[in-house]
C-alpha cells in the first residue's frame, strides 16, 4: 500500500524546528535506516489521516542547496530527483522558522526554482508573536503562490491542518514571482518580499540576550560550562548506573534461575550463559544510551549545546577538532558506545571520524572495576597529601592518561590520516527555547532502537562466540572423576585457554601468563568481564565479596616458583594495556554501525593494540 502513497520530502535548515515537526506529523510511525554507503540516517514516516496517508521523508538539515557535506548532498540530490534508487518526491514540504525568514527565504526561493509542488510550513509563529513580530501569512501565500501554513510544532497547533494538506500535493498551486538563482538576487528578492508581508518586524529575544550575557560571559561562561559538563557526566554515572546495575543483575539472576531449574543440557547452558548473558550485555547499555541522548537532545533543542560548542571551540581548535566534538569525547568517559553514537552531531566527516578514532581512549566506566582491583592489590595506600593516597593518584593518573592520549591521537590523525580541507566552521546560536518533551522522547526511542537492531546483533553474536570459546570443548576428566567438572577445569581445557596459550609469545614480553591472556579474551566481550574470567581461571569461590579472594591469589607467591601469579611490574603493564587496548566488542559494533564498514573498526583494533602493546612493554620494563 505504501507504494501508492505520495512521497513528500521534508527540508529545512538546522534549528528550524524540522525534527519536532516531523515527530509531530508522524509520531512513532517512522523508521530509521541508513543511506547506502554513507553514514547519514534516512528517516521516513507515514502521515496518516483516516484511511489516507502520505510518506514523509525527512531530509538532512541544510542552509543551502549548494551542498558542501555528505548529508547536505543527499538532501539536495533527493530534492532534484538525481539520487539513485530514490524516486523524485511528489511534493516538497519546506520548514522555516518564522522568526528568521530574512535568512531562510533565499533558500526557499532556490527550492521553489526546482519547480516541484511545494508547501511552506512556518514554525515558531507563537514565538514570532511573543517577540512583537507580525507577519501577513495570507499575503505571503499570495506573493509566493504556494500554500503557506503556520504551525507550532511543540504544541501541536496547525498540525492537523498541515497533515490534511500533505495527502495530496497535486492540488498545491505553483510558485510565482521567483528571482534569479544567483545568491545576491535571491537575497534582494527576499528583502523586498519580506518588506511587503511584515506588519511588525520581530524583535531580538530579550530573554536570550540576558541568558547569553551570563552563559557566554568570558569568565563566568567558562565556569558555568565546567559546572554543566560535571553535572552532565555525573548524571550519566549516578542516574544510569543503578539502572545498569539492576539490568545486569536481573539478567544474571535469570541466567542463574535457568541453570538451576532447567535440565542439565548443552542447550540450557547455551541459553543461560550465552543468550541470556549476551542479551544482558546488550540491554545493559540501554539506560545509559537513553539518558545520554535525552540530555543531548534536551540541550540541543534548548539552544545550550551550540553555546557549549562556542565556549569550548578555541580549546578544541588547538587539537584540530571543533567544539561539537567535545560532547562525544566527554560522553565516552561514561561509555564509548553512546559517545561514538553521539558523533552524529558533528557535521564534518573528518572531525567526526577523528573523534570516533580516539573515543575509546577515554576512560569508560567498564575499566573502573579492573583498575580498582589491580590498584588495591598492587599499589600501596601510602598517604601523599592529606586524604590523598598513592592509590587515588594512580587512578587519577590512569583517567588523565586516557584523556590526554585521546587528545594527542586526535591531533595526530587530523595532521596525518585525516588532513586536508575540512568543512568551514559556522554555528547558528538559536534563541533559547523550551524543548518538546514528546519529540525528545521519540528521538531517544529511535536511537535506542537503532542501537538494539544493529550494534545489539553484533554484541549478541560475539557474546555467544566467546561463551562457546570459554566453555568448550567439554573437559575430559578421565576415569574416576567424581561430579561435574568445575568452572576452572572447564576453562583450563577450553578453546579460550588454547588461545591464551597460543598468545603467550605475544604477551609474555608484557609479563602476562596464559591465564591472564584468557582474561583478556574474556574481557573482549566486555572489559569488566576480565575480573570474572580471571576469577574462574584462578578458581576463586563464586561468592567472592569485593574480589578479596582474587586479590589474595594474585599477590600470593607460588610455593614452587616463589613468584606471585601477577607481579607488580605485570600489574602495571596490565593497567597500561587496559588504558589503550580496544577491548570491547560493543564499541567495535558501534564503530561498525557508525562508520558503515568494517574498515575503521579493524583499523582501530590494530592501531590501539599496537599502542597498548608498546606502552605496556615500556611500562613493564620500567617497573621490573
Amino acid at each position, binding site marked *: 500500500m505504501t507504494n501508492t502513497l505520495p512521497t513528500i520530502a521534508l527540508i529545512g535548515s538546522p534549528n528550524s524546528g524540522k525534527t519536532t515537526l516531523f515527530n509531530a506529523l508522524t509520531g512513532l510511525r517512522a523508521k530509521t535506516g541508513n543511506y547506502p554507503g554513507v553514514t547519514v540516517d534516512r528517516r521516513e514516516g507515514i502521515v496518516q489521516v483516516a484511511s489516507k496517508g502520505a510518506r514523509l521523508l525527512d531530509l538532512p538539515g541544510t*542552509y*543551502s542547496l*549548494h551542498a*558542501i557535506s555528505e548529508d547536505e548532498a543527499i538532501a539536495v540530490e533527493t530534492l532534484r530527483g538525481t539520487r539513485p534508487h530514490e524516486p523524485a518526491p511528489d511534493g516538497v514540504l519546506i520548514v522555516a522558522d518564522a*522568526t*528568521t*525568514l*530574512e*535568512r531562510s527565504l*533565499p*533558500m526557499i526561493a532556490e527550492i521553489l526554482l526546482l519547480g516541484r509542488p511545494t508547501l511552506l510550513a512556518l514554525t515558531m509563529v507563537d514565538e514570532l508573536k511573543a517577540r512583537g513580530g507580525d507577519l501577513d501569512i495570507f499575503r505571503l501565500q499570495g506573493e509566493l503562490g504556494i500554500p503557506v501554513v503556520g504551525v507550532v510544532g511543540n504544541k501541536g497547533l496547525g498540525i492537523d491542518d498541515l497533515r490534511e494538506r500533505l495527502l495530496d500535493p497535486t492540488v498545491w498551486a505553483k510558485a510565482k514571482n521567483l528571482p534569479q538563482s544567483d*545568491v*545576491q538576487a535571491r*537575497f*534582494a528578492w527576499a528583502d523586498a518580499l519580506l518588506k511587503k508581508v511584515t506588519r511588525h518586524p*520581530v524583535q*531580538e529575544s530579550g530573554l536570550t540576550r540576558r541568558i*547569553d550575557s551570563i552563559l*557566554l560571559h*568570558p569568565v563566568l561562561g*567558562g565556569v558555568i560550562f565546567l559546572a554543566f559538563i560535571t553535572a552532565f557526566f555525573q548524571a550519566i554515572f549516578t542516574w544510569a548506573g543503578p539502572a545498569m546495575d539492576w539490568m545486569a543483575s536481573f539478567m544474571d539472576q535469570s541466567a542463574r534461575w535457568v541453570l538451576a531449574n532447567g535440565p542439565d543440557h548443552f542447550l540450557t547452558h547455551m541459553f543461560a550463559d550465552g543468550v541470556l548473558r549476551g542479551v544482558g550485555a546488550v540491554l545493559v547499555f540501554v539506560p545509559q544510551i537513553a539518558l545520554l541522548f535525552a540530555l543531548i537532545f534536551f540541550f540541543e533543542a534548548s539552544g545550550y549545546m*551550540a553555546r557549549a*560548542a*562556542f*565556549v569550548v*571551540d*578555541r580549546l578544541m*581548535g588547538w587539537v584540530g577538532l571543533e567544539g561539537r566534538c567535545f560532547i562525544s569525547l566527554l560522553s565516552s568517559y561514561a561509555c564509548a558506545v553512546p559517545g561514538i553514537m553521539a558523533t552524529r552531531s558533528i557535521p564534518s566527516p573528518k572531525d567526526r571520524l577523528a573523534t570516533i578514532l580516539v573515543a575509546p581512549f577515554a576512560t569508560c566506566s567498564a575499566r573502573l572495576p579492573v583498575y580498582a582491583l589491580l590498584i588495591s592489590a598492587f599499589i600501596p595506600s601510602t598517604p601523599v597529601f592529606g586524604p590523598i593516597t598513592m592509590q587515588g593518584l594512580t587512578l587519577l593518573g590512569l583517567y588523565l592518561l586516557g584523556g590526554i592520549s585521546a587528545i594527542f591521537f586526535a591531533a595526530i590523525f587530523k595532521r596525518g590520516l585525516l588532513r586536508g*580541507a575540512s*568543512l*568551514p*566552521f*559556522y*554555528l*547558528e*546560536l*538559536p534563541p533559547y527555547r523550551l524543548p518538546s518533551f514528546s519529540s525528545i522522547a521519540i528521538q531517544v526511542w529511535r536511537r535506542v532502537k537503532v542501537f538494539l537492531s544493529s550494534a545489539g546483533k553484533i554484541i549478541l553474536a560475539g557474546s555467544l562466540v566467546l561463551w562457546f570459546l570459554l566453555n568448550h570443548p567439554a573437559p575430559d576428566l578421565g576415569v574416576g572423576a567424581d561430579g561435574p567438572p568445575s568452572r576452572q577445569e572447564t576453562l583450563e581445557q577450553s578453546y579460550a585457554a588454547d588461545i591464551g596459550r597460543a598468545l603467550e609469545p605475544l604477551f609474555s614480553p608484557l609479563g602476562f601468563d596464559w591465564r591472564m591472556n584468557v582474561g583478556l579474551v574474556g574481557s573482549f566481550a566486555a572489559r569488566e568481564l576480565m575480573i570474572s574470567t580471571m576469577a574462574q581461571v584462578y578458581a576463586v569461590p563464586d561468592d567472592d565479596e569485593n574480589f578479596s579472594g582474587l586479590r589474595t591469589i594474585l599477590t600470593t607467591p607460588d610455593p614452587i616458583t616463589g613468584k606471585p601469579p601477577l607481579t607488580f611490574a605485570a600489574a602495571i603493564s596490565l593497567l597500561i594495556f587496559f588504558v589503550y587496548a580496544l577491548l570491547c566488542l560493543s564499541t567495535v559494533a558501534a564503530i561498525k554501525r557508525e562508520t558503515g564498514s568494517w574498515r575503521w573498526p579493524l583499523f582501530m583494533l590494530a592501531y590501539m593494540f599496537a599502542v597498548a602493546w608498546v606502552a605496556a612493554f615500556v611500562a613493564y620494563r620500567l617497573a621490573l
Partner: protein
Amino acid sequence: MVLIPGLNKLPSSTPTTLADLPRLGMGRVIKVVGDGPASERLRELGFAQGTEVHFCRQAPFAGPIVVALRGYQLCLRLGEARLVLVEKPGGTV
C-alpha cells in the same frame, strides 16, 4: 595562528574584514572573497552585499566570534570571518 583583534590593524586603505568586528562594533558587508566552499557558504548564510552585521561577543584567547545578521546569530572562527570584507557605514575605518 593566533590573531589578536586590534593588534593587527590593516593599512587604512584596505577594507577591513569581519575579524575586526570586535573593534568596529558593526559593519556593512562589501563582499565575501574567494570561491571555496567556505566563501560560498558564507554568501548563502546571508553575507550579501549591503547586509548589516553586528558584533555580539568573542570567546577568550582569540576564540570564535558571534555576530548578528538578518535576524539571527552566527558563530564563526576568525579564519572564516576574514573572508568577509566589511566597511563601517558613514566613514572609513
